[in-house]
């Protein structure tokens, strides 16, 4: 057939030939089929995204603690991969509903894991962009009737192609029947139907409040097949987190400072878990200590040595609690 002589063509070229009367529709379909076969650039890109996926998973593994979370993320990854493969083999597939509830105290890694999930979904071609839009009640709930749906829709629009992460989502149910929070929930549920497969919704908040929130909204509960619990860190995990943060900033703890930090962490854990912001509090302590070290070094008479710059002393942590 003469179209064999035309050489490799792009989609547009095939359509132009068809329109120009150079090929018949049947020939155009044959050319289309061959176009689909020669997908080398795409497969190269795939390998690339495979590598990036491995990077994302390595980053997940580098997080301290969170064993249950890591296992579940691996499960999700495996599930998505198998469903995609089954689709290729034309086997029945489960719909990929990835809306998730994150339950845990503040500072237990929810936002960090959400960001990692976004990137993982992007590299697995579940979401085209995989970015994270982080919102809270005030970003969704409006001030007058109709305002809420509009604000919520705007946030959803921003999140299309990525993840909408609603922190302290239970607060949407606060205020009872007349509260506009309910309107936001309705708009979210509608968007989950209208933009199915286009974005992933993550609701995050304290364990008990989230449980209560989902129980009081059964329609919402059934739409979230994935629940991830973020347990509080124990003292050795918190210490490891602190040391990792310091290492990344090129600081070290003196032995005394280390002991002081352990005491602070233990004291924090003994107090009400609510007030102890877990990793976030530890990060604040570290940042405070770095600032205090700077003040101490500036006021110190004489020359600063490299060692001075490197080490955090116990006094830099201040009185703590």
């Amino acid at each position, binding site marked *: 057939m003469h179209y064999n002589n035309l050489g490799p063509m792009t989609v547009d070229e*095939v359509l132009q030939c068809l*329109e120009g009367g150079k090929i*018949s*529709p*049947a020939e155009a*379909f*044959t050319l289309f*089929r061959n176009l689909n076969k020669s997908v080398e650039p795409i497969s190269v890109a795939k390998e690339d995204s495979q590598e990036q996926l491995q990077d994302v998973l390595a980053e997940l593994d580098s997080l301290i603690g969170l064993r249950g979370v890591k296992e579940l993320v691996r499960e999700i990854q495996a599930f998505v991969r198998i469903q995609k493969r089954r689709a290729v083999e034309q086997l029945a597939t489960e719909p990929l509903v990835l809306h998730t509830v994150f339950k845990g105290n503040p500072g237990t890694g929810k936002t960090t894991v959400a960001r990692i999930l976004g990137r993982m979904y992007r590299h697995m071609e579940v979401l085209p962009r995989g970015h994270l839009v982080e919102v809270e009640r005030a970003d969704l709930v409006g001030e007058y009737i109709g305002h809420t749906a509009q604000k919520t829709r705007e946030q959803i629009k921003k999140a299309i192609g990525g993840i909408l992460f609603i922190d302290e989502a239970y607060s949407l149910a606060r205020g009872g029947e007349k509260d506009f929070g309910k309107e936001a929930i309705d708009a979210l549920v509608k968007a989950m*139907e209208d933009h199915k497969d286009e974005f992933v919704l993550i609701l995050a908040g304290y364990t008990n409040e989230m449980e209560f929130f989902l129980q009081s909204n059964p329609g919402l509960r059934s739409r979230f097949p994935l629940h991830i619990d973020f347990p509080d860190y124990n003292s050795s995990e918190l210490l490891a987190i602190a040391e990792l943060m310091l290492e990344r900033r090129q600081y070290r703890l003196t032995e005394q400072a280390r002991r002081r930090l352990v005491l602070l962490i233990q004291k924090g854990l003994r107090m009400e878990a609510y007030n102890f912001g877990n990793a976030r509090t530890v990060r604040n302590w570290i940042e405070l200590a770095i600032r205090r070290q700077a003040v101490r070094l500036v006021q110190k008479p004489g020359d600063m040595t490299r060692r001075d710059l490197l080490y955090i002393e116990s006094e830099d942590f201040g009185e703590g609690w």
Partner: protein
Amino acid sequence: MRECIVIGKANVGKTLFAINFADYLKVTRLNIEFATPSGESYRRVLSVPLALQELISDQPHHTLGLQRIEIQMPGVKGRKYFALVDTSGLTEGIHGETLIRRAMAQTLAKVRDAHVILHLIDASRSGQVGAIEALGEVDWQVAQFGAMRTGYAILANKMDLKEAQNGLVQIRREFPGHVIFPVSALLKTGFEEVKQFVWRHL
């Protein structure tokens, strides 16, 4: 919006199927977006009877260009939004008229991105002597193209005609391994299976 495209040779009943299928999915007023091969586009809202009266003809290539109907499909759980795209008929060989060739190019441009392809074949003609010619090269090539994707089904249309039974046998023999639904676009038979197929693949 996801798209379900209706393709096939001229006069196999694509437009009748599109309108009656929309009617079957409980769309009473069809909001149709027309895109002509000359580059114009416009929108019309038609009732089902009016659409049947105005858009259907027994002359080939009555539908020129694309006719896109937006549909909310009710299912057991929730509903899905999609566009049902009716297209110009494909011809065997190269057509002499530029406008018709351009309309076919519009069809092909759409086919590549569609989530679901419903390929209509006239079963009443396929059963006649010289069935291979009736089925033709273009149907075979479309099926080959469809075999590379998941949301592709063949609709053996005009099952209300008595010759169609033989034609269905012939189609099944010619296209082994494909999803084939016998339908009558006129009497709306076999639509439930098609609906479920579309639902699964959107």
